């Protein structure tokens, strides 16, 4: 259990989703610090410039300008310094082939953004709890897609 403040990184170009996400984090009972970037390039810049500790988790949107979530995931998992960073894919669309590929590329979980706000908050908080419990190794492929 992480007792110090949890560092959460969100990469999503959608302002509304960032707001929903922030609402979910704000309601989370454990101390949490949220950092938000709005495109893939920004994300990679931030990650490569980190000198001390990596964030505890990255929520990564797929459909982003300049550099999409796919490319970011590959870059992260290919980097010696960054590959331990747990990456949760957070996307509107769901395509089985895409999901399979993401699993192969080393993402920890796949979450399809729920349309119900309650569900939205629940699933993020569930994920944050898993992080807090340091229970974030890649599951089997059947449990890769997280649903509430």
């Amino acid at each position, binding site marked *: 259990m992480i007792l110090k403040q949890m560092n959460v990184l969100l990469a999503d170009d959608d302002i509304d989703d960032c707001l929903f996400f922030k609402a979910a984090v704000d309601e989370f009972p454990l101390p949490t610090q949220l950092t938000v970037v709005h495109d893939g390039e920004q994300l990679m810049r931030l990650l490569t410039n980190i000198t001390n500790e990596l964030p505890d988790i990255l929520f990564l949107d797929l459909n982003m300008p300049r550099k999409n979530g796919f490319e970011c995931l590959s870059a992260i998992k290919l980097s010696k310094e960054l590959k331990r960073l747990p990456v949760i894919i957070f996307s*509107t669309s769901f*395509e089985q082939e895409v999901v399979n590929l993401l699993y192969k590329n080393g993402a920890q979980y796949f979450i399809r953004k729920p349309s119900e706000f309650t569900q939205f908050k629940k699933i993020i908080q569930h994920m944050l709890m898993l992080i807090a419990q340091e229970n974030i190794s890649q599951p089997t492929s059947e449990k890769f897609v997280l649903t509430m």
Partner: protein
Amino acid sequence: MAKIKNSEEDELTIALAELAFQKEEKEKLVAELIIVREELAFQKEEQGKRAEELGIANIELVFEDDEKGKRAAELIIANKELVFQNEEKEKRAAELGIANKELIFQNDEKEKRAAELSIANKELAFQNEEKEKRAAELIIANSELAFQNEEKEKRAAELIIANKELLAFTYVSSHDLQEPLRKIQTFVSIILENENDNLSDNGKYNFQRMQLAAGRMQQLIDDLLAFSRITTTELKFEKTDINTIIEEVKAELKDTILEKHATIEAIELCPANIIAFQFRQLMYNLISNALKFSNPDIPLHILIKSRIVKGSKLNNKKLSPDKEYCHITIKDNGIGFEPHFSERIFEVFQKLHNKEVYGGTGIGLAIVKKIVENHNGIIIATGELQKGATFDIYFPAN
């Protein structure tokens, strides 16, 4: 006596003259004799010479005679030779005569043949002309075909572009269209959650309707995507046990099956060469369709069976008579449908029921048909209102 004396004297003188003359004649004769003697001696000499010459000539002649004898012998030999040669020449001539006859005959034959060839030649010339005409026609037909080919290539290129555009459209539907829709749903859910106390009942109802409509649209987008993915994804055929697929589908639909008290009976299912994940979707769609359109008064029973059958026994234009087909039947005892809808139910967005009663987007069976077509097969629906529906699928066994 002077005159007689004279006469005696005269006669003496005359006899003297006569004697002188005779003496002269004698001398002449002697001279002549001498000459003759000389002449004779000369002649004798000449005769001697001549005899000598004759002797020589004789020797010469004897030699010549010898030579002539030799020559004659040679001539005899030569003559024999000539006779032999002559004979040979005659033989040869006889042979040549025969050969000549033969040649004359052959010549005749050749003339006949030449006449025939000249006829054949004319025939060939005519055929040649015909062929040239035909070739000219073929050239025209060829250029026509080349043109048509070009047109087809253009058309194919256009289709490739159109297909790419369609894929782009699919992508837009799958990603960009879903995002604002989900946002509408989320905001509605936030209002319903946070502003519940501030809303009138009518306001709440309208928001709920809005949520339903948005949900339906999301379902539509998802189904449409599934439909387009059926055509765009790679088709990988593999020998698959259909029983396993049905077990998987049953597990997935477990709750609905329990809720509807449905029994699914699968018998004699043979392994088949199929695109497994598509066939799973096909079975899922057909079974969930049967579950959805079940008769509330009768427990639902779905029967699934298969057999291998020769195309010739199926009497269907779309099936090749000499191919073997896998025939799968899915039969239920649900609410069925009017027979004249048997084709329309496979069209995209075609629904027979009001969406408030039976939900759904009208894409499920269109997907089923697409999948069957991907397996080079056909699907036939038969039904009667309130008496259940039967789906017969035929696709090549190998």
